[in-house]
C-alpha cells in the first residue's frame, strides 16, 4: 500500500486559500439535483468533485488530520463515523483541548475514505477508548509546532509563551501576540508523524494531564443535532445524481431457495422499467423512478425452487435443537479450583437453564446506498459505519483497484453493527457496474427485518453450589450460541449478495459464545462455551453478525439471572450477595476491577434507594405486583450496574418498567450530557430487547417482517424516570483519573437481567426465556 498524500480535499482547501484552485468542482452545477448544502469543508459536495483516483490519505502527515484556516479556525479530519452517540463532538472537544483552541472555532470531518485517514470507522465502542488517542497526540503536536513557529516571530523563548483560544502571546506582555491563523492559516504544517500503525501515530509532544483539560468534561451541545431537527441535513438516503436509477432486490421466498427463472415479461412493459439483473440467486429490478421500482418488485414473477431439507428448525423448536446439536466449535473448558469436589460437598445445589432468541437490528431506516460508476471509478454514498472496510470489500468484490473505489460516509439510521456488513453498498456497486449508471438501492422494511444481520440465539445451562452459610462455592456455566458462520466486516465473500451469487469462503467463521464479564470471586468454577450450527449457514436470513454489544446482553441475562437465583436460594439480598462475592479475595490480581465493581453497585443501590431484603418481595396479591432487580457487568474496562423497577399486571402479564438506574464508570468522561443521553437510550434499547424482541421463523423463513411481527419498545413503554450516575470514582486517591474508556455499548449488558430479576422480585416467578412479552409472563404466572 502506497501512502504518500494528504486528502485531495485538504489540498484543495489549502490551495484555494492560497488563491490557486487546482481542482475544479467537477460539473458541480449540473451534478446535483438537490443542493447538498455543503460547508467549506466536510460536505459531500466537495467529495463529489474529486474524480479520482482515491489513494489513502497518509496518516503520518499532520496535514491529513488538522487544517488551520486564516480566520483562526481549525478543521479536524478523523477516520471515524458517528452513529448518533456524539463521538464527533467528543473528538472536537479532545482535539480542541490539546490544540488550545475554542471548541466553537473547530469543525470535524469524518469517515470518507478519500478524505480522512483510515481509523476503521466505528465499532466495538473504540472511538473514545482507542481512536481518540492519536487524535489527542496529533493535536498536541500541532500546538507544539505552532509554539515553535511563534517563538522567533515574537522573539521570545517557547517556555515564555502561553496559548489561549488559538492565540499565542508572551507571558506578561499580551500585546506581543500571534494567532494560529496568522502563523499557518492556509498553509501546510509539513510535519511527519511516527508510529507503527494508525493507533500508534504520534508526534513528540506529550498530551495534557487530565487536570489541564478544560474543554473535556464540559457538555457542548452536539454539533450534528440542529440539522437533524430543522430538516436541512443531507443523509445518505438523500443524495441524487443525474441519470440515477432505483433498484429493489427480489429476495428468495425461503432460505436457500434457488432462482430457476424470471419471467421478464411480467415487468418489462411497466413504466420506467430499466432492467432485471439476475445472477445466481441474487435478483434485482431497476427502474427510472423509485415508486416504479417498488411496483415492479411487487409485480415480478420469479420461479424459485425451495431446498429439499429445512434450513433451520422453527423458532419454537430452536432451543431443543441447540441443546441436542453437536457443537461446531468449543473453547476449552475454563476451570478454577475443584468444582466437582465442591458440588459433591455442597449444602445445596441450584440448577437453571436460560434461552435467548435471535434478535435483529431492524434498523429504523432499511439498508440503502447509492453507487456511482462515473469515470471508471466507483463512489458509494453510504451510512456504513465501517466505510473503510466497505471500500476494501467492494474493490475486491468487483475486482477493481482500491484506489478506484471510495466510500463517502454520510449520516444514516442507527447502525449498532448492522452496517459492519453493509449489504446495500455492495449491491449498489454491483448494479452500478452492471448498468453503467448511478444506482440507488433501498431495502424494504420487510426485507430489512427478515434479512438483516442477527444477534445469535443462546441456550445456557447453569449449576451453582451453596455452602451451609449460603455462600456460593462453585459455579458451572455452559453456553451455546447459534453463531456458526458469523459474518465478518464487509467481507466480499460473506455479505448477502456474495452468498446469493454463490461465493463461499473456504471455511466459515467459527463464531463465538463467550463468558460472563463479572468479577465475582468464586473459588470453584467450570465454564464451557460452544457454538452450534443451524442446518443451513449460507443464504439464510438467520445469518449472525455484530449486534450492539455482541453476545453481552445474552450472556449477562443468563449469568446475572442465575446469581439472583442463588441469592434467593441463600435468602440473601441481591445487592449484598453480589458485594459479598466481590469482596472475597483470589490469587489473581483483580482487586482494582473488583473495587470498581463494588463502587458501581453501591452507587446504583444508593441512587435507587435500595432497601436490603431477599427477593421475592412479600406483598399483597393485588392487581399489580411491584419489584426491583439489579445486575452488573463489565464491558472491557467499563463497568455498569443497573437497577430496574417494574410493575407486573397479574391479569395480563404485562410488564411495565417504571424506573431505571445506571451507575456507570467509563473512566474519564468527555461530554457528560451527551454520555447521559447515550446511556439513557442504550438502556431503553436493551429494555426493548428484554421485553419485546424475538426473531420468529418457521422452518424455511423468518416470520418477523415488520413492526407488528417484530415489535419493539414504544413511547408508552418508556420508563417514567431514568437516573444515570457517573461513578468514575477511582478508589485510589493517589491517581488523578482513569483514562477515557468506551461507553457505546456497556449499558446494554445488564439490562435484560435487571428486568428479569425485578419481575422475580415482584412475582416470585423466574423468567428464563427472553423476551418477557405479556403472554409469556402470564403463562409463567399461571404455571
Amino acid at each position, binding site marked *: 500500500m502506497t501512502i504518500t498524500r494528504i486528502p485531495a480535499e485538504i489540498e484543495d482547501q489549502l490551495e484555494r486559500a492560497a488563491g490557486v484552485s487546482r481542482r475544479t468542482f467537477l460539473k458541480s452545477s449540473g451534478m446535483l439535483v438537490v443542493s447538498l448544502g455543503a460547508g467549506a469543508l466536510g460536505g459531500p459536495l466537495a467529495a463529489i468533485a474529486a474524480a479520482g483516483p482515491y489513494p489513502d490519505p497518509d496518516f503520518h502527515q499532520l496535514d491529513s488530520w488538522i487544517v488551520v484556516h486564516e480566520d483562526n479556525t481549525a478543521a479536524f479530519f478523523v477516520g471515524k463515523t458517528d452513529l448518533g452517540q456524539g463521538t464527533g463532538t467528543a473528538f472536537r472537544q479532545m482535539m480542541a483541548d490539546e490544540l488550545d483552541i475554542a471548541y466553537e472555532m473547530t469543525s470535524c470531518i469524518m469517515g470518507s475514505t478519500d478524505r480522512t485517514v483510515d481509523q476503521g470507522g466505528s465499532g466495538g465502542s473504540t472511538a473514545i477508548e482507542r481512536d481518540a488517542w492519536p487524535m489527542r497526540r496529533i493535536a498536541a503536536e500541532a500546538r507544539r509546532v505552532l509554539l515553535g513557529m511563534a517563538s522567533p516571530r515574537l522573539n521570545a523563548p517557547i517556555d515564555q509563551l502561553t496559548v489561549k483560544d488559538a492565540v499565542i502571546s508572551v507571558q506578561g506582555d499580551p500585546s506581543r501576540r500571534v494567532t494560529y491563523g496568522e502563523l499557518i492559516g492556509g498553509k501546510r504544517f509539513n510535519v511527519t508523524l511516527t508510529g507503527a500503525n494508525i493507533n500508534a501515530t504520534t508526534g513528540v509532544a506529550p498530551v495534557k494531564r487530565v487536570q489541564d483539560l478544560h474543554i473535556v468534561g464540559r457538555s457542548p451541545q452536539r454539533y450534528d443535532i440542529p440539522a437533524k431537527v430543522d430538516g436541512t441535513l443531507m443523509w445518505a438516503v438523500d443524495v441524487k445524481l443525474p441519470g440515477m436509477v432505483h433498484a429493489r432486490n427480489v429476495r428468495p421466498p425461503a432460505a436457500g431457495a434457488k432462482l430457476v427463472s424470471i419471467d421478464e415479461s411480467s415487468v418489462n412493459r411497466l413504466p420506467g422499467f430499466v432492467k432485471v439483473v439476475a445472477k445466481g440467486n441474487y435478483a434485482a429490478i431497476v427502474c427510472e423512478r423509485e415508486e416504479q421500482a417498488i411496483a415492479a418488485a411487487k409485480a415480478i414473477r420469479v420461479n424459485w425452487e425451495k431446498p429439499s431439507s429445512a434450513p433451520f428448525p422453527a423458532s419454537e423448536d430452536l432451543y431443543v435443537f441447540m441443546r441436542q446439536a453437536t457443537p461446531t466449535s468449543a473453547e476449552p473448558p475454563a476451570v478454577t479450583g475443584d468444582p466437582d469436589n465442591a458440588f459433591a460437598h455442597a449444602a445445596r445445589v441450584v440448577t437453571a437453564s436460560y434461552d435467548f432468541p435471535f434478535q435483529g437490528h431492524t434498523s429504523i431506516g432499511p439498508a440503502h446506498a447509492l453507487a456511482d460508476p462515473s469515470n471508471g471509478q466507483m463512489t458509494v454514498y453510504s451510512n456504513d459505519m465501517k466505510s473503510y472496510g466497505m471500500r476494501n470489500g467492494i474493490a475486491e468484490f468487483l475486482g477493481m483497484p482500491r484506489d478506484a473505489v471510495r466510500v463517502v460516509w454520510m449520516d444514516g*439510521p442507527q447502525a449498532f453493527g448492522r452496517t459492519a456488513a453493509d449489504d446495500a453498498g455492495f449491491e449498489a456497486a454491483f448494479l452500478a457496474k452492471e448498468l453503467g449508471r448511478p444506482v440507488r438501492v433501498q431495502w424494504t422494511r420487510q426485507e430489512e427485518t427478515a434479512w438483516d444481520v442477527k444477534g445469535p440465539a443462546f441456550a445456557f445451562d447453569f449449576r451453582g453450589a451453596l455452602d451451609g452459610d449460603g455462600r456460593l462455592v462453585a459455579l458451572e456455566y455452559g453456553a451455546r450460541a447459534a453463531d456458526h458462520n458469523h459474518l465478518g466486516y464487509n467481507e466480499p465473500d460473506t455479505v448477502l449478495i456474495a452468498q446469493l451469487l454463490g461465493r463461499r469462503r473456504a471455511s466459515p467463521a467459527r463464531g463465538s459464545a463467550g463468558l460472563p464479564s463479572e468479577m465475582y470471586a468464586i473459588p470453584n468454577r467450570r465454564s464451557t462455551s460452544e457454538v452450534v450450527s443451524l442446518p443451513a449457514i449460507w443464504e439464510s436470513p438467520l445469518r449472525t453478525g455484530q449486534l450492539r454489544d455482541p453476545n453481552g446482553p445474552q450472556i449477562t441475562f443468563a449469568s446475572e439471572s442465575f446469581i439472583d437465583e442463588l441469592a434467593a436460594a441463600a435468602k440473601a439480598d441481591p445487592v449484598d450477595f453480589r458485594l459479598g462475592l466481590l469482596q472475597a479475595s483470589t490469587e489473581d490480581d483483580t482487586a482494582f476491577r473488583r473495587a470498581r465493581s463494588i463502587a458501581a453497585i453501591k452507587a446504583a443501590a444508593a441512587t435507587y434507594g435500595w432497601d436490603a431484603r431477599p427477593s421475592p418481595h412479600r406483598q399483597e396479591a393485588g392487581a399489580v405486583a411491584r419489584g426491583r432487580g439489579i445486575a452488573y457487568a463489565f464491558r472491557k474496562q467499563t463497568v455498569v450496574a443497573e437497577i430496574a423497577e417494574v410493575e407486573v399486571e397479574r391479569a395480563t402479564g404485562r410488564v411495565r418498567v417504571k424506573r431505571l438506574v445506571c451507575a456507570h464508570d467509563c473512566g474519564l468522561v468527555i461530554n457528560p450530557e451527551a454520555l447521559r443521553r447515550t446511556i439513557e437510550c442504550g438502556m431503553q434499547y436493551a429494555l426493548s430487547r428484554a421485553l419485546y424482541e424475538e426473531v420468529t421463523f418457521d422452518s424455511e423463513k423468518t416470520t418477523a417482517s415488520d413492526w407488528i411481527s417484530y415489535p419493539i419498545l414504544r413511547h408508552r413503554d418508556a420508563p417514567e424516570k431514568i437516573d444515570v450516575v457517573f461513578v468514575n470514582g477511582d478508589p485510589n486517591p493517589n491517581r488523578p483519573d482513569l483514562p477515557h474508556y468506551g461507553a457505546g455499548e456497556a449499558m446494554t449488558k445488564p439490562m435484560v437481567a435487571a428486568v428479569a430479576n425485578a419481575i422475580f422480585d415482584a412475582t416470585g416467578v423466574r423468567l428464563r426465556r427472553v423476551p418477557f412479552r405479556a403472554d409469556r409472563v402470564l403463562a409463567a404466572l399461571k404455571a
Partner: protein
Amino acid sequence: MITLTVNGKRHTVDVDPATPLLYVLRNDLGLLGPRFGCGLGQCGACSVLIKGAAMRSCLIPCSAVKDEVTTLEGLARDGVLHPVQQAWIDEQVPQCGFCQNGQILTAKALLDKNPDPSDAEIRDGMSGAICRCMTYYRVQAAVRRAAALMAKRTRTGDVR
C-alpha cells in the same frame, strides 16, 4: 399532472397519481425531512402535517392530497425554529436522528390539539412514532419543554 401545496409553495409534478406522497416530496420536490422507514404506515419516519394532523406520507397517494402539506422544513418561521424544534435542541434529543422527523411532527400535532398534555397523554399520543435508538425518554421531556415554550410564546404574543 399533480398540483401540491407544500410549505406554502405550489408545485406541479408529472407523476403517476398513485405515487405515494413521500416519493414526490423526496424525489421531485427535493425535501429532506420526511424519510422512508417502512412504507407500511407503522413507524412514522415519513410523517407530514396535513390539516394539523401528522400523516404517513408513505401511504397517501399524491393525487389524494388536497390540503396544504407541511414538512419538517416548513416548521420554522422567519428563521426562528418552532418551539418543538427548539425544545428538541435544548433537550439534545436525537441519537442518529433518522426518525426524529416523525417524532417532531407527531409532537407538534399533539401540542396543537392539546397544549398542556399530561405525561400519560404524551406517552399515548407519541406511541405511533417508533425510535430505534430509543430516545423516548428525552422525546417526552422535550414535548413537556415545548409545551412550556409554546405557552410562554402565547402569553407574550409571540405568534411564531
